[in-house]
């Protein structure tokens, strides 16, 4: 789960990282008041879960409160990479001497939190890692011992030569690790970490993603979720315990298992269609889950056909067939439904479905081809 810049900054502050003050507002008037309060030049930043806010015009410098209000009204409501801006962060502008990059993420290969730091700030770290790896210093933190003092120092001394700056950065790096672990994060980033002409090191941007699996034990972080930044169907799917990602196509997919769901989407594309979604209904034949899945899929007006692809393993196909029938009886659906059921007891299942007037298949290719054809015809 991504959290907003202002939330990540709050988290950073709580572990002691120096972060300039800021105020989150939702109207141009509030922006003006905040700018007045800080005095001087302020930065206005769109709070959306997207990179490239600056390029999209979502970050502006305002020299006085009235300008802040004007920019705020431009940015609020703006669309940035498909996300609508409804909150902006107002912070006093900082004098910047240098910019560096400090980030930490869970590295799969090292199986550990892994820092990457670079004396060049404002960069795309992935791009730099590819093009000039020597501009990055990398360190994995042994989960048995945590961040050791000399490791923080070693990273910090890659950013600066001045011992005073190294010392500040060393603390910030150790604190960033605390924030990372303390929040159950999968990624945390300060980009840029600046130095001011007075020799002070500060984090002026903040980015953080939380491991979804941590949220059950961190209700205060779970509450940070901004459902306004995602399609309502995704919110609903999460509440129903379904894995769902909205896409732009017209073939609604309802599959058991994440891998099979992806393979189904790929096959839709292969046959010339466009999947409307990723959806994993999990391993049960529970009709309630199927109902929720159908409601979510049909709430997308683009969807023209509903495609079930179910592999009955431990759960028997006949049970799944009965579940689908019960679900479709409880909900009013105008769209064509095509179903593929295979695995244990598939013959029985096909008969049940056909008796109920539903199109049933055992081949994945066949059903997908049919779904794409129906979507094209609709």
């Amino acid at each position, binding site marked *: 789960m991504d959290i907003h810049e202002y939330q990540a900054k709050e988290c950073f502050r709580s572990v002691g990282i120096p972060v300039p003050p800021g105020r989150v507002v939702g109207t141009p008037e509030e922006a003006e008041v905040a700018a007045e309060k800080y005095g001087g030049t302020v930065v206005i930043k769109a709070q959306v879960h997207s990179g490239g806010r600056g390029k999209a015009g979502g970050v502006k410098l305002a020299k006085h409160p009235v300008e802040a209000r004007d920019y705020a009204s431009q940015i609020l409501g703006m669309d940035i990479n498909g996300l609508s801006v409804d909150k902006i962060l107002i912070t006093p502008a900082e004098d910047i001497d240098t910019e560096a990059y400090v980030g930490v993420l*869970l590295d*799969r*290969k090292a*199986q*550990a*939190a892994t820092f990457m730091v670079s004396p060049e700030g404002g960069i*795309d770290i*992935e791009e730099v890692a590819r093009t000039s790896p020597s501009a990055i210093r990398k360190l994995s933190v*042994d*989960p*048995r011992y945590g961040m050791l003092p000399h490791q923080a120092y070693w990273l910090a001394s890659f950013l600066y030569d001045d011992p005073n700056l190294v010392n500040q950065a060393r603390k910030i790096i150790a604190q960033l690790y605390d924030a990372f*672990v303390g929040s*159950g994060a*999968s990624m945390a980033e300060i980009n840029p970490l600046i130095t001011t002409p007075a020799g002070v090191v500060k984090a002026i941007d903040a980015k953080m993603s939380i*491991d*979804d*699996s*941590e949220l*059950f*034990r961190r209700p205060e972080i779970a509450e940070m979720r901004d459902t306004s930044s995602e399609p309502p169907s995704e919110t609903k799917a999460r509440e129903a315990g379904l*894995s769902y*990602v909205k*896409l732009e196509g017209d073939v609604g997919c309802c*599959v*058991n*298992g*994440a*891998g*099979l*769901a*992806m*393979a189904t*989407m*790929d*096959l*839709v*594309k*292969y046959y010339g269609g466009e*999947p409307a979604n*990723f959806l*994993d209904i999990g*391993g049960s034949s529970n009709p309630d889950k199927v109902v929720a899945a159908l409601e979510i899929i049909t709430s997308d007006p683009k969807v023209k056909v509903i495609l079930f692809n179910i*592999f009955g*393993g*431990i759960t028997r196909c006949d049970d799944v067939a009965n579940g689908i029938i019960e679900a479709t009886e409880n909900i009013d659906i105008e769209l064509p439904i095509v179903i593929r059921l*295979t*695995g*244990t007891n598939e013959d029985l299942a096909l008969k049940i479905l056909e008796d109920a007037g539903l199109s049933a298949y055992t*081949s*994945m*290719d066949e059903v997908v081809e049919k779904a794409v054809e129906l979507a094209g015809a609709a």
Partner: protein
Amino acid sequence: MAILIDSDTRVVVQGITGRDGSFHTREMMAYGTRVVAGVTPGKGSQMFEGPNGSSVPIFNGMDEAVRETGADTSVIYVPPRFAAGAILEAAEAGVDLIVAITEGIPVLDMARAHAFARDRGVRVLGPNCPGLISPGKSKVGILPGQIVAEGPIGVVSRSGTLTYEAVFQLTTAGLGQTTCVGIGGDPLIGTNFISCLEAFEEDSETTAVVMIGEIGGTDEQEAAAYVKENMSKPVVGFIAGQTAPPGRRMGHAGAIISGSSGTAEEKIRVFNENGISVAIRPADIVGLLKSRLA
């Protein structure tokens, strides 16, 4: 022959009295797996009733379960909140293999648990995996026994039902399996592709391997390099998620394209570069396999 488990494997089920644990324990026993013990704290000295009047002793802790029954493999069906702790307990109790089925274990918990298991030389499969099955010998986990058959093909996959799909096609086409291994859909897993490929390469009965990957990470790319360097047996690959958008988690916690890395396109390219035959559709797997084995 088979890899990782066979008919001698002695299994202890952690969370045996839970809904999933009890269901799948009966499935495993019905398949013929030697389930020798169960663990549920507070239910020690009870018996778990298996199919056909069989039963399995329940213990309060892994230490006792392993000591009393000589179990060498553990399978974990406990909820995410307790699952990393169950892995630590199993590793300390001294089993050789821990199969962690549970989905949704916090990744930082797993970083510690993997380190702990490494310290003790214990192999972890998963978490968030369907387990593994050596047809006709033993199954540990949740793979459906009825879709597999004995034969010469090794299968290794990050996915659950997609593996069933592939295995079912193999079985239907008369291509039985030595062992089917689900390595799990989480970002930090204990046993990766390479480690299974190594085992299949060494296994005298395995003649070819099907490797099913997906978006996220670089495990497939490293495996591909391994295949080119070290495998004499043909490998057929499939990658799920060609249509997945970047930055979104596709069900599995590990199935996410970060920036431009971990895409299906990249993985397919690397497979092709390293002599792995790539199936564009799951339905192509059998054909490619047959042509490689011909």
